[in-house]
C-alpha cells in the first residue's frame, strides 16, 4: 500500500507549499463604500484593495476592515451564500457580497452601498427588523390533529415547496421591490419574501390553515404588479413571481371571486387546493 504512515518531519498544513501563497493578481481594485450613520450625510470613501484570484466583494470589504478601516461596518456570516447576511448594493444592484466576484464586474471602481429600502444603522448595515415582524404576523404551519402514524408525503409535494424553503432571507427581493423601495407601503405589504413564505405554507400538503384572505388584506398581495424584479435578484434562483406570487394571486382570486367556490366555502368551510 503506497501510504506514507509518517509524513516528513514537517507538520505544516498539507497545502501550504502548493498553495500559491496569496493568489495575488497584481491588480488593484478601487472600492467605493458608502459610509455613514443615521442623520449624517453618508459619503463614499474610496479604498485601494489588492485583487486576489477569484476574489468576491466581501473579501475586499474584509481587506479594508483588517488593513485600512477597522471601523467599517458590514454584516456577514457564512461567506458561502447560505445565510443571507451580507446583502448590499454593488454598482447599484442588490447582491450577496460573498457571491459577487470581482472578475464578473466591469473594470473600474466598484461602488458598495447599503440596501436602500431599509433604515440605515451604519455604513453597509441596515435595520431589517420589519421583516421579522411580518414573519410573526403570518400564522405558522398548522397540521391537522396528529394520529400518531408516520406521515406519508409524495416526493412531488416536497419538490413543489422545496423551492420556497430554499429562501435564505437575504431580503434582496424586499429591497428591490418597488412597492417597498419607492412607495413606502411596507406597513401594508408583506413583500416577495413573505409571499414565498405564505406559498410554502399554503402548498404544504399537511397544513390546514387558509391564509389567503389575510395575504390579500394585510399582506397587500394586490399591490404586486408582477414586474419580476424580485425573481431577478434572488440568489437562490427561486421563481418568486411565477411559482409563488402568481399562484397565490390565483388562489386569492378563486376564494374571492369564484361564486361556486364561494358557496362551497360557506357550506363546507374547507380549504381548497
Amino acid at each position: 500500500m503506497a501510504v506514507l504512515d509518517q509524513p516528513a518531519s514537517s507538520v505544516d498544513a498539507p497545502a501550504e507549499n502548493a498553495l500559491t501563497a496569496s493568489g495575488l493578481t497584481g491588480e488593484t481594485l478601487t472600492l467605493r463604500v458608502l459610509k455613514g450613520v443615521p442623520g449624517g450625510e453618508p459619503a463614499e470613501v474610496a479604498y485601494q484593495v489588492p485583487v486576489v484570484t477569484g476574489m468576491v466583494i466581501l473579501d475586499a470589504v474584509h481587506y479594508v476592515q483588517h488593513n485600512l478601516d477597522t471601523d467599517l461596518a458590514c454584516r456577514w456570516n457564512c461567506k458561502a451564500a447560505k445565510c443571507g447576511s451580507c446583502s448590499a448594493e454593488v454598482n447599484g444592484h442588490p447582491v450577496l457580497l460573498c457571491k459577487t466576484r470581482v472578475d464578473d464586474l466591469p473594470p473600474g471602481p466598484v461602488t458598495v452601498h447599503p440596501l436602500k429600502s431599509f433604515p440605515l444603522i451604519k455604513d453597509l448595515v441596515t435595520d431589517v427588523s420589519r421583516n421579522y415582524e411580518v414573519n410573526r404576523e403570518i400564522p405558522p404551519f398548522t397540521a391537522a390533529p396528529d394520529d400518531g402514524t408516520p406521515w406519508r408525503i409524495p416526493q412531488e409535494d416536497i419538490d413543489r415547496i422545496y423551492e420556497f424553503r430554499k429562501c435564505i432571507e437575504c431580503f434582496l427581493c424586499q429591497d428591490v421591490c418597488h412597492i417597498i423601495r419607492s412607495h413606502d407601503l411596507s406597513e401594508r405589504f408583506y413583500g416577495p419574501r413573505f409571499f414565498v413564505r405564505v406559498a410554502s405554507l399554503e402548498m404544504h400538503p399537511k397544513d390546514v390553515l387558509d391564509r389567503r384572505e389575510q395575504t390579500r388584506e394585510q399582506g397587500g398581495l394586490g399591490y404586486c404588479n408582477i414586474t419580476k424584479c424580485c425573481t431577478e435578484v434572488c440568489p437562490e434562483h427561486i421563481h418568486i413571481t411565477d411559482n409563488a406570487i402568481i399562484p397565490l394571486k390565483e388562489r386569492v382570486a378563486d376564494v374571492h371571486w369564484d361564486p361556486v367556490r364561494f358557496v362551497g366555502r360557506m357550506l363546507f368551510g374547507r380549504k381548497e387546493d
Partner: protein
Amino acid sequence: MTATPEPYDTIECDVLVVGAGGAGMRAAIAASEAGCSVTVVSKSLLGKAHTVMAEGGIAAGIGNVDPEDSWEVHFADTMLGGQLLNNWRMVELYAHEVIDRVLELERWGGIFDRTADGLIMQRAFGAHSWKRLAHVGDRTGLELIRTCQDKMVHTDRVDVRMEYTLTALLKSGDRVCGAFGYNRNTGQFAAFKAGAVVLASGGWGRMYRYTSNSWECSGDGAAMAYQAGADLLDMEFVQFHPTGMIWPPGARGILVTEAVRGEGGLLFNAEGTRFMLDYDPVKKELSSRDVVARSIYKEVQAGRGTPHGGAYLDVRHLGADYVKRKLPSMYEQFHALASIDITQQPMEVGPTIHYTMGGVRVEPETAATTVPGLYAAGEVAGGLHGANRLGGNSLGDILVFGRRAGEAAAEFAKTSGTARVFDDAQIAAEQSDLLQPLGGDSNGAAPSENPYKLHEDLQLAMQDDAGIGRSEESLQRALAAILALRERSTHIRVSGGRALNPGWHTVRDVTNMLVLSEAIVRGAIERRESRGSQWRFDHLDQEVEFGKVNFVTRRGDDGMEVVSVPLTPLPDRLRPLLERSRFYDPAKLPKGYLTETAPVAGTTRKKK
C-alpha cells in the same frame, strides 16, 4: 477601574438562552413550554446562525430505507466513531431521542425528501452502518433552523434579542444569575438577569486559518463558562472535515458537504488513484472524517496532491440531473465561487476545520454544567462525540440536548429561588475591560495592536502547529505563540466609537479564542497518543491508558489546569450493542477499558 458601573439596560427573564442556532431555539421552545419566560440572545440576525451551514442531514435510526437500522446501531456507530471516549449515557439518550426529534421537526412543518413510500428519506454518511441521515437536498441545516425559528417566534414568552454580544456570565455566589454584554449596533451595555442560563453558542473554529466556520464561531460561550469556573472537556479534539474548498484562495475552507460522498462521490489523487480503497477498504470514501481527512493529507504529503494541494472529489458519474437534484447548493457554490461545473469537472478539496468535539462538561440528562444554574447544549458542550464526531450527529445533538437543556434550565429557574442579585463590582470591571481598547493610545511603551492582525497571527500558529497533525515540538511552539499573543492582546487599540464597530467587536472574539486555543493545545500536549481527530506524529498509536480518561480543563489559581479524570466504562447492558455496528471488529476496538486483558484497575493518573 471604578466600582460604580456606568448605566446599563437590564432585561429580566426566567431562562436566558445564549445563541440562536438550532440548540438555542430548541432550548427556548422547551423552556417556554415549561412555563418560563425566555430571552434568546443572538450575536447575529435570527436564522443566520451556523446551523444553516449543516448540509447533509440529521442522523436518526428510523430505518425507513434500511430496516436493519435502529437506535442501537446508531449508538454503536457513534461510540466507535468517537473511539469510546464519548459519554455513553449521552450517546444512549441521543440515539434514542433523535428519532422523536426528527419526527417532531416534521410535525412543525420542516420538510424532508421522501422514499418511494412517502416516508422520510435517509442517506448514507461516513461511518454510519446504514442509510440514516434524514435530509432535504443538501440544505438540511437551513430547513432545521427555519423550522425552529418559525416555531419559536410563534411561541409565547420568548423574547429574541438580535445582534447582542455577551461577554461574561454574572454570578451570585456560586450560582449563575445572568450575563453581561452589549448591543452590537449601539454599543449600549446590557445585563440579562435570569434564573438559569443555557449556553447554546456553538463552537470555535475561527482560531484556525482554513475553516468552514463563520466569524461567530469564536467560542464566546465556552470561554465565558471557563471564566465562570465551569469545567471544559476533551478540548484537544477538533474536527477537520475532509472536504473543504481549496481554490480560489478566498473560498478556501468553505464546506463541501459529506453528502457529496454519501450520494456516491469518489475521491482521487492527482494520479487518478482512488486512494481511499487503500486507507479504508471497508468504508472507503465513507470512512469517518478523521480517517478521510488524514488520507487526503497523506496523499498531498506524498506528492500526489492536486495543483492547489488537495484531492479530487468527483460526482460526474452520478449524472447531471441527479447531482443538481440531490446536491443543488454544491452545484451552485462551485459554479459561483470557483467557476466549476461539478457535473462536468471534479472538485478540488482538502481538509478544513469544521467542528469542536470538546466543550463544556455537562450532565447527560440535564445538560447541567459544573456551575449551578448554567446549562450547555450543542457544539459548545462536550462529551457526546468523543474523539471524533460522525456526520449528521450534530443536527441531532442540538435538537436532543437543546430540548433537555431548556427543560432542565426551566426547572432550575422555577425551583431554585430568586438569587438574582448583580455584583456591581463585577459589572464595573467588565465594562472597564471592554472599553479599554477604545481608549486611544496603548499604555505608552508598547505599540498599539490591531485585533485583526492578532487574529491572523493566532490562525497561523494554530493551523501550522496545532492542526491536523501535531507533535510535542509543534504544540509547544503553538503554546508559546498563544502566550505571546495574549501579552500582545493587552495592547489592542481600535479607532471609532461603540456603535457598530467591528474592530472593537473583534477584540473580545480574539481574547476568547486565545483562551480556547490554549485549552486545545494544553489538552493535545497531555494526550500523548493518536486517537480520533488527534493525530500525534510523535505518538502514532492509541494507548490503553488514554482510552480510559477524559481531560478536563479548568481555571486554576495559577492559570489553566488540565487534569485527567477516569471515564465511566460502558455498562454491561450496553456493551453488546457495539457488535451491532456493521463496522465492529473485535480485533480493532479502540484501545482502552475494553481492550485490557485484566479487569479495569482504576486510573493511574491524578484525579481531581
